[in-house]
């Protein structure tokens, strides 16, 4: 291969890479300071015309719990878990400086003052813009979260293989 051909091949590959128009986010963390940027990225990517899939697993599932649901789970361990770690976008904690809820309250006040959309608004915007939200079936079983505990407008719960299959031709983020 000549230098010119090599250059052309490299250029074509670069252009093909640039055209990746799909984003798959694995939402593992359920903290306010992880879920918030996740939703900002998802809505921004939707605005850019990208196809977006957000796969919610482990702690990441809790933000999808309906805000009016208090206790979840079938056994005492799952119930205790939900008692200690309430789900819903309005009950997210900070990964640091939480101060028993004072940190998130201050963060929300700052966000409101700066007109930064709340996680709840962003989640609704994401749904309006066609962002595909997939809860992880295995985590739901493990943590005792039922479909009716979660918000409307989600896709059918699925497994890791579904998310990975979607990720094959996409940019992926694990947050």
């Amino acid at each position, binding site marked *: 291969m000549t230098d010119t051909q090599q250059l052309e091949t490299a250029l074509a590959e670069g252009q093909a890479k640039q055209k990746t128009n799909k984003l798959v986010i694995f939402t593992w963390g359920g903290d306010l300071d992880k879920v918030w940027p996740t939703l*900002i990225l998802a809505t921004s990517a*939707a*605005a*850019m015309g990208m196809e977006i899939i957000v796969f919610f697993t482990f702690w990441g599932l809790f933000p999808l719990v309906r805000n009016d649901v208090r206790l979840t789970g079938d056994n005492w361990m799952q119930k205790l878990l939900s008692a200690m770690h309430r789900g819903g976008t309005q009950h997210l904690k900070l990964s640091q400086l939480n101060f028993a809820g004072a940190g998130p309250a201050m963060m929300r006040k700052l966000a409101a003052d700066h007109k930064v959309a709340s996680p709840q608004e962003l989640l609704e*915007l994401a749904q309006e813009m066609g962002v595909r939200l997939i809860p992880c079936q295995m985590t739901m079983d493990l943590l005792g979260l039922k479909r009716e505990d979660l918000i409307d407008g989600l896709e059918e719960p699925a497994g890791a293989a579904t998310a990975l299959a979607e990720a094959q031709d996409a940019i992926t983020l694990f947050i």
Partner: protein
Amino acid sequence: MSIPVITTLDCKGLSCPLPIVKTAIAVKKLQPGELLEVWATDPGSVADFTAWSKSTGNPLIDHTAEGGVFHFVIRKE
């Protein structure tokens, strides 16, 4: 020459990602060739609107700044 339809979107005071998200939703509702003008105050919006325009192919035909208020005009492709 016909005068293109201009829709106005006020994003003053809003922070990232709302200006670009609201713009994308508004542009979706337009017919090709129609214009959208956006007012924003988020300093990050200059870079964001340029990147958004480049990425989506809807040209940013004008952008100006005056007294901390940014004005963008986008043509729907």
